[in-house]
């Protein structure tokens, strides 16, 4: 019993970590007024780059950092389209979601002699208690380091958004950019920064999947996590702590779908695999109307337009 519960908790955190990075990326971008539907694409790019760099360098940490960098670079495309050229952010985000997996697969075939999967990395990212544990409960609670990192990033983002002047400015830009502008706050620069950070975090999220949860890049390593992360942003009312909690819930659904005593039950495994996605839809139906997005979320800022 204790083993089962600890397994469930351990898996919940494990599956949540990539979601949390993605969702925090969504929070920071949308708080500044840029809708970022491209999280999925950015996570896929991060997932591949993390695994590939991790494999070639032999160091998972290098892979993880470069994955963030790649996600940030990829997000730059979104920033240029959405902020500088004031393009429709939905379309720009969807474009990234189409480019991301395509790019990742293309590069994967280039780097791994035509294979759609990368070679497994020699060492995954470390776990908090180090190597294998003899005690099953300790083994289950031996979280990936990314689980801790995700928590720290959430705390940091909360502190920045609500306790510092930069946070006040970011939120003002998402709510009322014209007001921010008249007070000398550079709206475009703020949005650029936030979209960039969003991409870096999404890149981390992807790498957290391929360097901690699994050990290599596969075409289905990222399959909907970016969208689930977006649902978590909404469910979490655009706050870091809310999104974090929402991700835990979605991670729990994923953990449940691989829970042994359920997996061996009469419920078909296909139905169990649908759990996280079904939960996402249910949550969206119940909560989308009720939570209030930043007012100018998704609206390009143009000076002097009444």
């Amino acid at each position, binding site marked *: 019993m204790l083993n089962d519960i600890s397994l469930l908790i351990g898996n919940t955190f494990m599956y949540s970590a990539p979601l949390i990075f993605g969702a925090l990326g969504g929070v920071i971008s949308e708080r500044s007024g840029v809708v970022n539907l491209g999280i999925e694409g950015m996570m896929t790019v991060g997932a591949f780059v993390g695994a590939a760099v991790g494999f070639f360098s032999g160091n998972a940490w290098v892979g993880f950092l470069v994955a963030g960098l790649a996600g940030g670079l990829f997000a730059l495309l979104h920033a240029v389209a959405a902020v500088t050229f004031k393009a429709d952010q939905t379309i720009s985000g969807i474009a990234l979601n189409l480019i991301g997996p395509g790019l990742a697969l293309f590069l994967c075939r280039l780097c791994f002699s035509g294979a759609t999967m990368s070679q497994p990395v020699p060492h995954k990212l470390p776990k908090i208690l180090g190597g294998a544990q003899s005690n099953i409960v300790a083994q289950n609670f031996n979280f990936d380091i990314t689980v801790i990192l995700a928590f720290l990033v959430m705390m940091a983002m909360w502190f920045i958004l609500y306790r510092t002047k930069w946070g*006040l400015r970011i939120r003002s830009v998402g709510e009322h950019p014209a007001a921010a502008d008249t007070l000398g706050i550079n709206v475009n620069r703020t949005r650029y920064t936030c979209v960039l950070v969003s991409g870096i975090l999404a890149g981390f999220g992807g790498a957290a999947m391929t360097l901690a949860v699994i050990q290599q890049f596969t075409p289905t390593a990222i399959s909907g996590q970016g969208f689930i992360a977006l649902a978590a942003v909404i469910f979490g009312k655009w706050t870091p702590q809310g999104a974090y909690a929402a991700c835990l819930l979605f991670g729990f659904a994923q953990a449940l779908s691989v829970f042994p005593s359920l997996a061996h039950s009469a419920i078909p495994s296909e139905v169990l695999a649908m759990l996280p996605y079904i939960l996402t839809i249910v949550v969206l139906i119940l909560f989308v109307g009720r939570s209030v997005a930043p007012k100018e979320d998704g609206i390009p800022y143009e000076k002097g337009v009444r």
Partner: protein
Amino acid sequence: MEVSNEYAVQMHGITKTFGTFCALNQVDLDVKRGTIHSLLGENGAGKSTLMNVLYGLYQADEGEIYLNGEKVDITNPNVAIEHGIGMVHQHFMLVDNFTVTQNIILGNETTSHMGVLDMKKARENVKKLVEKYGLEVDPDAKIEDISVGMQQRVEILKALYRGADLLILDEPTAVLTPQEIEDLIGIMHNLIADGKTIIIITHKLKEIKESSDTCTIIRRGQYVDTVKVADVDEEELASKMVGRQVQLVVEKTPAKPGETIFEVDHLNVKDDRGLPAVNDLSLKVHAGEIVGIAGIDGNGQEELIEAITNLSKTESGTIKIRGTEIQNTSPRNVVNHKIATIHEDRQKRGLVLDFTVAENTVLEKYRTAPYSKGGMLNRAEIGKFANQLIKDYDVRPEDCANHPARGLSGGNQQKIIIGREVANEPDLLIAMQPTRGLDVGAIEYVHKTLIRERDQGCAILLISLELDEVMSVADTIDVIYKGQIVDSFKQGEVDEKTIGLLMAGGKQNGKDS
């Protein structure tokens, strides 16, 4: 005029063009330090453009700006702020879900170290300002929870917090209640006493008389005159502004009321929060009569209109048009019963701003021939109707039929709405704040149209927060207070003071408020 340090601001020969359109042509403005100077002009005359040049939001093509006798080059709002210029925009620049303090410090935050906010100190600073100028406002209240008048104070505090010596107020009274306007004028005098200088952009003549020392008038981008306010009367200011004689007094013949067209009986309506807003209200409107409802904002006027137009639910009571009950049906049913409504917020309820003017003119009848057939719109017919309306109501620019309604000035947007509603040949025309935010010329036009419709036998229900408007236009004046009609008079029966008292909840005829 010579440059001198007696003047807080001198703008000389300012010219600004947008493309081929000349918004300002060689305009001069000289504002003495420690005075209230109003800038008067119709909508689109260039007042706001001139002030945006001063605030650094636009760069002038030609001309010089001197502050306290020194030539300055104001390239962006930050430079303006450094020079002690503060601007309160007409549409408030406040973040709704921030507190008063957060809004005031934004961009100029009080921090303890490393960018960490020191909200305690910030709150103290705000409190000091609040006390110094008598700008009573709760530093911890959220903007979305406070009244428009309070929000304006926050805007003024924002400017003062940044050390403004010169305050530009863009149409500051457009959204205020009479009481709030009085408070604002008091605050302005406090600021002047402290050595500040104020420029107010306005087209309300009465307030210029009440508040300002000097007034500069501009018309279609041209400088007209600068006058001492004490030396001129309102008529003179109006004609300088419009460029022709204007009737400030509404001219009309006595009403010849016919049968009862519209009747509200013991109506009860709740507001958004579920609290009673309209209490047992009864009123009647006859054909050929204008009934004006006078009252302070928030006494149930909005809820009354929403119930009549079926935008919200009626709790109990009846609303009858020509004897047919229409409460708790649908807005379309209301339109079908020949009730036309000019809503208070023309941008939200009156028009679909991103639709073309032509599309906006058929919002209520696009489903009927000849404007559509078998579900397909007949663009040619719609265009024909729109162009006729544009011509009849002198909407400018005249080729606007296929432009988005957003681009028109407030006065022209209102003309479209009025034209559309009147074209339905209503039995009852409801006009809520029909002249809000309009300039003198447009107000005159709206009032004339209402009276013309009345003379043709239409029943008109006019709801206005401007007591002057109700007193001069309405034949019957109903006073609303806390969702009830507390008294009713014929035009000319009582004076403004009596009605003002009733609006504020004073007693009359032994009725309890």
